[in-house]
């Protein structure tokens, strides 16, 4: 025991400079990641800023109960799930389709240009993307309204941004616009790894290009698709945050709130804007717990297909 301890101390002495490189990072993670994890306990307290963390009284599950019984609960859950499912159905396959199409392009220069152009919006912040969306859809000068009027599809400009029925479409559309190109990179890389002999053999057997996509390209990149699908399922409760805040005037816009408020924006609204810290923490904790559960569940499911995240 004593020799073991001495050995350990000797080892630490010989590598102390390496530990010295690690500790600043560990310390920062402790303060900015682990302290908030502990701080989540305010979900079980009646926290107020003047009393501070330690002196606020414990209240058990009060805030959770309040959330489950609040009239907002079902609306928030519905919006979160609908937006997530729409993203899963549209934003998720879109880059896969783009990668498949890019792979069929034989003119390298054309392919390069399309790739370069389609990656660009990813590097723009949501503020810029939101600015574009507002500008494109605006009533008085929006290009979309001008185009639709010219095509005689509508008689007068539509105020897209203030009609709840259009909100989900606008949200998903701007998400696809921003990230379709960048998300296709991983799929393109997976496609690049496919053995070209497979295509030659298929062509000899008389398979057309559609048939080759279906029978060679898609099955070959299936493992990558599956991994990203698992991640997406684990993220089902992260329906969106920045994108929704930007498109709803920082959550202040009540006109579309019935369809735009998801868990994360609700946490932001109740916590930061109306300063109900404990209540909002409870809602956030509820989300985290379910998310971790979903991730574990999705990973279990994928093990059946021979894929796993860890």
């Amino acid at each position: 025991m004593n020799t073991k301890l001495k050995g350990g101390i000797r080892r630490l002495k010989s590598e102390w400079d390496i530990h010295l490189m690690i500790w600043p990072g560990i310390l920062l993670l402790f303060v900015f990641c682990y302290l908030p994890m502990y701080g989540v306990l305010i979900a079980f307290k009646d926290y107020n800023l003047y009393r501070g963390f330690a002196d606020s009284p414990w209240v058990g599950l009060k805030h959770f109960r309040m959330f489950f019984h609040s009239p907002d609960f079902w609306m928030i859950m519905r919006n979160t799930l609908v937006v997530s499912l729409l993203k899963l159905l549209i934003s998720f396959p879109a880059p896969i389709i783009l990668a498949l199409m890019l792979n069929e392009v034989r003119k390298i220069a054309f392919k390069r240009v399309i790739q370069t152009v389609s990656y660009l919006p990813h590097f723009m912040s949501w503020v810029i993307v939101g600015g574009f969306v507002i500008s494109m859809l605006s009533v008085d000068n929006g290009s979309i309204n001008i185009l639709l009027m010219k095509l005689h599809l509508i008689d007068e400009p539509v105020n897209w941004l203030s009609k709840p029925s259009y909100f989900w479409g606008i949200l998903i559309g701007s998400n696809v616009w921003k990230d379709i190109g960048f998300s296709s990179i991983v799929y393109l890389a997976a496609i690049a790894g496919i053995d070209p002999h497979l295509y030659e053999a298929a062509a000899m057997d008389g398979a057309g290009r559609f048939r080759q996509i279906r029978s060679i390209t898609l099955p070959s990149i299936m493992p990558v698709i599956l991994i990203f699908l698992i991640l997406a399922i684990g993220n089902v409760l992260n329906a969106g945050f920045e994108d929704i805040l930007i498109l709803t005037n920082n959550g202040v816009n009540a006109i579309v709130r019935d369809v735009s408020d998801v868990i994360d924006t609700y946490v932001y609204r109740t916590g930061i804007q109306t300063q109900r810290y404990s209540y909002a923490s409870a809602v956030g904790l509820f989300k985290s717990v379910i998310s971790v559960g979903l991730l574990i569940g999705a990973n279990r499911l994928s093990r059946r297909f021979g894929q796993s995240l860890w």
Partner: protein
Amino acid sequence: MLKLSKGEQMFNILIYGLLAILGIITLYPFWNAGVVSLNAGSDTAMGGVTFWPRAFTLDNYKLVFEDGRIAHGFLITIFRVVAGTGLSVAFTSLLAYGLSKNHIMFHKFYMFFCIATMFFSGGLIPSFVLMKELHLNNTFWVMVIPFIINVYNMIIFRTFFRELPVGLEESAKIDGCSSFGTFVRIVVPVSGPVFATLTLFTAVFHWNDWFTASIYINKAQLMPVSSILQQILNSNLATEMLASQTGGNAAAINAANQAQTVSSKSLSMATMLVASLPIMLVYPFLQKYFVKGVLVGSIKG
């Protein structure tokens, strides 16, 4: 050149056509924003500006640079990008280098400590409360210090460092270099690509982030340009909403637009483009690094 069958030709036309449309849809908003920003604000308010400016002017850009608030915002953003990126890359790479040594004591614990933060977090409100209790809110550093360690980047750095040839560091050790000296003098110089990639990713994050300042800072003199822009857009969106509440008729919309002289659409488009210009300028040159970074991250992450 092989002669293509009818079906193949149709297939090609379809694919090239769809991709070209995607390209146009992606670029058009940028183009239109450029056109609107070069158009006189009062003329823009009359509507119908699409592919070409109708009343060409550089006034909007002049206003952007003369507006003290926006110019100051750029200054804050530049400070933030420099401090935030420098500190983050330095400390994250240092952490990654230390953790690339598998043989050290507590290695497993350190790794677990880092990786766990990718799966669990306290969430927005506990972090917000923490910043308040640490008195970091309303300071410049709230936009820098919490973002110094990025575990995702740490893993990319670490993967890269572990693939370096062992002999490289051994010889430095024999020559009497300390671990820190080896890192700075040997490892960093041969790790150019990974440093370039992650420096860029970090810089883009800091340049674009508007949310941090919007919740932690309410002093005007500390606002980065992204947050100022967000406030301007908010008021534009509010105008659209106002128009809808007054029934959406053209007269009310025009009135609302005329009332809104300071943040007219042309001016806000000019601000937006100036704010995104640095990224658009570096982007074409650095695209390959970005792509490489994504691939390394997605394989290991």
